[in-house]
Structure formats: structure tokens, C-alpha cells
């Protein structure tokens, strides 16, 4: 098993937090993990991308240049990284903010209105974890329960009151994928 996940967005959207959470959950499951953030000099609104590698074997290069999964949180990133995804790979797009117009035909695309879904849960800040929930449901790279557990380590204690809504967001994302799959079955 080797997943190379690239999460791309603007500073403030939670791209880096999502990557850290995922990497930490991988670590908790005893897998080899690496997390490499790439960000601009701006505190908010600049480029905020990260690559997360989760594998059953030792990781050679921690840099994700040809992702198996691309998470797109802004339109700039879709244009920039669509070409890099491996054939047969997956792009998850936050379609609340990005028109999911993908040129490639050899990859799977999942648009999710993550902002609206997060607002319906009562907190627009958890949009990133709606997306992460969907990613976990499709790839099964780590268990959703492990990620929920990892929130305790990744979030500072003063933010632990936000764990329930983040867990809800993860579950919501997974549920959306299941609904989407059922749609095709019928």
C-alpha cells in the first residue's frame, strides 16, 4: 500500500492541518508516513500545500510530485496540479469554491460542496474534514476512527471542544461518498 496525497489550497483553509491529521493517524496505525508542507511567506491567503505519504514500506522520497490523490481547495491548484496526478488517480474538489472542470479523462473526480456541508453541521471551519472523510472512505488509507482519535493529539487542548464537530464532518464526508456510490448502483 502506498498513497501519495497532495492537498492544495490557500492559507487558512486547513490544507496543512488536514495533512498533519492524516499523517498522524497513519503513524498511530503503525504505518510509514511523511508530511511535507509547502507554503508562501504570507500568513493568510498565500499558497498552502502539503504532501502526505502513507505506506507499508519505508518511504524513499517524501516529496509528492505525482500524487495518487489530489485534494483541490482553490481553482489555482486545480489548474496547477491536475496534470501531475497519476493515471487512475483521484481528484477531490471542494466544489463550493472551485468549478470542477477537469480536462483529464483517465482519473476519477469527486466534487464535494464542502463549505455548505460544513455550514449545515454548524461550523464552516470544518470543511476540510468533510473532504478528508470522503478521502478516507474512498482510499481506506487509514480508518476514520483513527483520524477521529488523532484529533486529540493534533488539536491543541484549548480547541478540544471542537473535536465533536470535526468528527461529524469526517463522518459526513464518508456518508456523501456512500450516497454517491449508491446513486451509481441504482
Amino acid at each position, binding site marked *: 500500500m502506498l498513497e501519495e496525497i497532495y492537498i492544495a489550497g490557500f492559507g487558512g483553509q486547513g490544507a496543512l492541518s488536514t495533512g498533519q491529521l492524516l499523517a498522524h493517524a497513519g503513524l498511530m496505525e503503525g504505518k510509514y*508516513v511523511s*508530511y*511535507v508542507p509547502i507554503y508562501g511567506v504570507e500568513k493568510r491567503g498565500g499558497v498552502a500545500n502539503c504532501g502526505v505519504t502513507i505506506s507499508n514500506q519505508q518511504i*524513499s522520497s*517524501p516529496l509528492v510530485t*505525482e500524487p495518487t490523490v489530489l485534494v483541490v481547495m482553490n481553482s489555482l491548484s486545480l489548474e496547477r496540479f491536475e496534470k501531475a496526478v497519476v493515471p487512475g488517480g483521484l481528484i477531490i474538489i471542494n466544489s463550493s469554491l472551485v468549478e470542477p472542470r477537469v480536462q483529464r479523462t483517465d482519473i476519477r473526480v469527486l466534487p464535494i460542496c464542502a463549505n455548505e456541508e460544513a455550514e449545515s453541521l454548524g461550523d464552516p471551519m470544518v470543511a476540510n474534514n468533510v473532504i478528508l472523510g470522503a478521502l478516507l472512505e474512498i482510499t481506506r488509507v487509514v480508518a476514520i476512527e483513527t483520524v477521529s482519535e488523532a484529533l486529540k493529539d493534533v488539536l491543541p487542548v484549548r480547541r478540544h471542544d471542537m473535536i465533536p464537530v470535526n468528527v461529524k464532518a469526517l463522518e459526513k464526508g464518508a456518508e456523501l461518498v456512500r450516497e454517491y456510490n449508491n446513486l451509481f448502483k441504482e
Partner: protein
Amino acid sequence: MKGNEAIGEGAVRAGCRYFFGYPITPQSELTHYLAKRLPEVGRLYMQAESEVASINMVYGASGAGARVMTSSSGPGISLMQEGLSYLAGAQLPCVVVNMMRGGPGLGNIAPSQADYFQATKGGGHGDYHLIVLAPNSVQELVDIMKKAFDLADRYRNPVMVMADGIMAQMMEPVELDDQYQIEIQPKPWAATGKVDHEGKNLINSCYVIPEEMESLNFILRDKYSEINKNEQVCEEYQLDGADIVLVAFGTASRICRAVVEKARAQGIPVGMIRPISLWPFPADFIGTAANRVKCFLSVEMNMGQMVEDVRLSVCGKAPVYHYGRFGGMVPTVRDVLEEVKKIYSGGAGQ
């Protein structure tokens, strides 16, 4: 654990008692970490007013016999060069961390390996060497700090640990020993106010009379040749049957490891040598390897610096090529693999 934090924890566990530094991206989390961690174990963190002040505070603490370090990135390390020359001249042990970033000039905060020349060939004025170590994983960042402090004390010489923006910000799993012991050998030369020693201990690098200066230079030369003999360290990867050998350190060596795997899967016999000590450069190992391989490719995040040392080590026994990306750009596995294939089809495979 983040690379910067790993260095901080490694330093604490190596018995680093003082840290003097000034924040600069991409190493600021290191100062941040030590600002919190050092006081927890009853030691001192101090943010200096500049890098020039930091390195001279290091000079003072080291002269008094303490384990001491500073850290910075490119522009800040440049400011420290005068101090480093003084430390080398006065034979003072210390550890300096350089998290390299894109340059020259103010450059950017992206990863780079462009300070290789500065670190391994002097950097400051005068005839001296730093011991230079280049880890390539977060675990190694922790482990190498102890080695760095031990080497500094053993040879009474500044040691530089070199990494880059990726290694600094990257998170990887780290195993920390619950049991760790710090053994620091006595330093009878230290200027401790006559508490621990008889007579006068003078810490100095100023010798007005050339004969006296030269005798210090002789001492340094003997020391450097001993370091060169004893402390060359490198790691080999899939060298058996390799026609093409990649030479890379730090982040570039992680990329090259993946290149070796991909090339081998396609039937191209590629191996890698990863220098862990950049000075002393593992010339003996590379020189021996040159007898049985067809060519070398030095992969660096610079315009071609380490490649000169590879050429000196190979000593004409095989062609040595260079592949680099610069200015904060990082070579991709695909690009290096293409370069390998180009070389292979161009004759190295025959």
C-alpha cells in the same frame, strides 16, 4: 515530529546547555522549540539581537566549556562567518545548524543546498575547516546532534549540521530513547575562572607574530588530517552491480533513493552513495568505488558544488556528471530518472 523540533530535541538530549540565536525561516520552529524546551530542563535559551551577536555569545559560552549551539539559515549563516573563523582559530567546540534556503542574496524560503561551498570550503577568512554533517531524515536529525556535539568536543572544532527547508518543515516518525545519558569529557583548556584548573587558560585566535600563528596552523593542519582520516562517513545504497552511481546528500538523497528503486525496476543498474559527512568528504569510499563503476552523477540542489569533491575523489577514473535544480527548486524523481536514462543510453550502459 517536525525536522526543526527533532534538531531541538536532539540538542537537548546531547546536553546542549545554551542556545543563542535569531529567528529566520525556515528554521524558526527550532528557536521556538528550544525557547520552550531548554528552560524546562534548567538550561538557557536566549534570543540575541542579531546573528553576529549569536555567534559571539556562542564563542563566550564555548570558551567557558559549555555545550552550546546556534542555528540559522543562509543569510544569517553568512553573518556568522567571522565568528566561525574565530571559533575555529581559538579551537572552540560548538554546533551550528544551517537550514539552507534559496539564494544568493535574500533569496527565498524554499529548500536549497547552495551553501555547500560556504560550509565545506571555509566560509570565513583564514585557513580552517568546519566538520560538516548532512542528515537526510527526521530521525537522523535527532541522532546526528549527539554526534555533532561529541565531534565538536573531541576535536575542539565547530561542527555544522546542514539541512534545508524541506527537512526543517517535514514531519516523520521519530523514536526517542527513554534512556539517554550525557557524557561530557572534562575540558581542562576552558576559561572557567580558575575554579577547575591551575595557571592561566587563554582563549584566543590573535597571534601577531607570524611564527606563532604558523605554529597554530600546524596544530590545526594535524587536527584536520586526523579528522579527515577518522571521520569520513557515508551510506551506500544498491551499489552491487551498479554502473551508474548517484551521489547525493540530504533531501536530494531521498529523491535519489526513489530514483534508484525506479531505475532498478526498469533494469538500469543504478546505485547511490550518500555522504553523511560533507567535510571530511568520503573521498576514500568514493575513490574505491570508482574502480568498479562506469560513471557518477552528482545530484544537488545547486549549480554544481559537491560535484567538484566527487571529481577529486574519483580522480579521473570515471566520468562525473552533475544534475541540479537551484534557487529553491527541488529536482523530481522523474527528472533525475530521465537524466539517468540519458547517461545510460549515451554509453554508460555499454
